[in-house]
């Protein structure tokens, strides 16, 4: 079984509104899977269906080879975008309660909680109420209650919001470690730089439809434009630029170099290769900079969504 989670042709309506339209997503075991999309695209609806908070109108969901059923709630850890804990309940009691709801025995829950509280160095908070903690502290507790039952599938919805950069890095490290230990992770966020950093595969949902999915590297290849950033040291920049325009498509540069080189974005035509461009450039001056412009997750997101709209 290569996929931990297979979502097949899922449809969900709220009254007249179709929140998910025939969405199919396959999430490989042991991967970090980015679930991306603009606000209101249907991500939360899909996440709630995976969590069995709501049921799909049609379509099937297979978790680890079995149709999704109530017993699977113990295999899933969910960190919703809208965080929440009982404000007037003590940290320890609350974590124990939530762990037991996930099916852990009380003694097992205590053991796991001790491990995590020691790891994050927050054992002193055990008897404090949530309302006495700062937002960042509460977020740590929230993270622990999400992962403490060692779920096979972890769903993080904007996991870094509310964390300072240091703690965000700590959490990112934990998430990747959980993946290395065998967990599969669904990662929903609007922060595209963290998608680049963490995701192996992504799916893009827009207006209730999945418009794109696959390995991030494949998608980038798919979205590459054969455009190169070029920096050239030359005495006759005007002439070189004019010459380039005869053979290639040339755009103004969207980057900066340290010196006063000629900087351009150059797009290859169908009938020429990167080497031809490079040899043309080396014959006209000293090449300082030559990089393929690989589309960022951000570019892909914007492009795909705009095209779809």
């Amino acid at each position, binding site marked *: 079984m290569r996929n931990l989670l297979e979502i097949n042709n899922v449809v969900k309506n709220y009254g007249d509104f179709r929140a998910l339209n025939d969405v199919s997503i396959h999430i490989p075991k042991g991967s970090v899977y980015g679930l991306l999309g603009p606000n209101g695209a249907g991500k939360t609806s899909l996440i709630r269906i995976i969590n069995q908070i709501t049921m799909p109108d049609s379509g099937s969901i297979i978790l680890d080879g079995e149709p999704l059923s109530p017993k699977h709630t113990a295999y899933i850890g969910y960190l919703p975008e*809208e965080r929440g804990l009982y404000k007037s309940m003590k940290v320890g009691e609350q974590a124990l309660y939530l762990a037991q709801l996930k099916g852990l025995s009380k003694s097992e829950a205590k053991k796991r909680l001790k491990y995590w509280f020691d790891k994050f160095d927050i054992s002193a908070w055990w008897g404090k109420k949530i309302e006495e903690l700062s937002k960042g502290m509460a977020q740590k507790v929230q993270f622990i209650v999400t992962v403490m039952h060692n779920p096979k599938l972890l769903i993080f919805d904007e996991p870094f919001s509310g964390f300072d950069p240091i703690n965000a890095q700590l959490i990112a490290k934990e998430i990747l470690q959980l993946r290395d230990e065998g967990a599969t992770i669904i990662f929903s966020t609007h922060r595209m730089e963290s998608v680049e950093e963490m995701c192996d595969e992504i799916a893009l949902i827009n207006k209730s439809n999945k418009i794109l999915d696959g390995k991030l590297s494949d998608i980038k290849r798919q979205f590459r434009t054969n455009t190169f950033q070029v920096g050239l040291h030359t005495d006759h920049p005007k002439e070189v630029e004019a010459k380039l325009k005869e053979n290639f498509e040339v755009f103004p540069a969207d980057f900066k170099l340290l010196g006063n080189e000629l900087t351009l974005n150059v797009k290859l035509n169908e009938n020429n290769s990167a080497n031809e461009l490079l040899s043309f450039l080396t014959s006209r001056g000293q090449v300082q900079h030559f990089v393929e412009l690989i589309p960022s997750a951000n570019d892909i997101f914007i492009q795909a969504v705009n095209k779809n709209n």
Partner: protein
Amino acid sequence: MSKLKLIIHREFIAKVRNKSFIMMTFLSPLLLVAMGALVFFLMKKNDEKVKEIVYVDNSGLFSKDDFVDSESIHYQDYTSYGIEETKKKVQQGDYYGALIIPKQDSLEVLAKSIEFYSKDSPGMSVMNSLESKIETKIRNEKLNDFGIDIAQINASRIPSNIKMYNFSGEESSKLINGLKIGVGAIAGYLLMMFVIIYGTSVMRSVIEEKTSRIVEIIVSSVKPFQLMLGKIIGNASAGLLQFLIWGILIFIISTIASAIFGVNMVEMQTANIPADQLEVVKQAVGGDKMQLIIQEILRLPILKMFVLFIFYFLGGFMLYSSLFAAVGAAVDNETDTQQFMLPIMAPLVLGVYVGFGTVMNDPHGSIAVMFSYIPFTSPIVMLMRVPFGVSWYELAISMTLLLITFIFMVWLAAKIYRVGILMYGKKATYKDLYKWIKYKG
């Protein structure tokens, strides 16, 4: 532990540990007893002072025997002082008032010309007592004029207490009817209080989970229906515990209080009956009747009443608190609950009004019967009717209807609840609720 048990346990603990719950639980009975004691002492203090009433009888009709001192009123014959002198004395001295009986030719005129002078307006009970004394005397005089022997009249006055039976052979009496009204009213009123206090507590708890956003985490582990049910049962248990503690505390405190202050429990109950009436009651009740009452209490269908009380109590609470839970799910904060509260409170209040208004006069009248079938009022109205004896088929209809409605409403409320708890930032309308009910899965 099953998930439902876990939820019930958490809700129960959260409620019981709440500071206001603890305060309410332990202070309310103290307050209640303290207030009772205060009222009693004030009454006693008020009555302790013996009222000195003087009378001037110019008619020569009355004698010392007509003005017998009672516990609270002492009479003195000032006829010898004359009217003006008496008035002066009363004005200056420590007297309650002066009764002036003039000389008149006929009893009819006399009855209308008796006057009472006092520094402050006299109390109703004193005036009633005086009037009744005079009326009795004048009636006796009149009877004498007609040549009727008063002794014969008195002998002909035989108190009657019609014994009432129903066809299953249970005996009842008018006295016991009062008792039944009391028992029924307390049960019905208690139910209403319980539903309102703990129903809103369920609602608040739902709103708290919604605003703190923890609900999404909980429902990713358990079904919303389980969460709702756990909440209702947890709160009900906390409420029952509170009632139990209240019962025990009131018993203990009043026992201690009566031991310390010498307050007799029976006296305390009758403390708010004016002294004169109390005498009447005591006379009417008498030794034998006291025994009769105790017998009658024992004759009440106590086991049946208890079982039905539990059934209607739980049924009524579950029915209403599921509605409260749905309201909590439909709103974002407590101030928005107003628009949904009225339809919930209306039948509750109606139940109590119907109970007090019709059941007491006619426990088996058509209105009382009707409202004891309607599931939203039946817990209150039927509880009030039960002490009067309700036939099994009526109970069966009422209980079945309550059970069906209860299951239906919990199902309906769960649908609203399930959608509502995940809807943030939008004030729901009735139209929204209808839409939510129709949502699938």
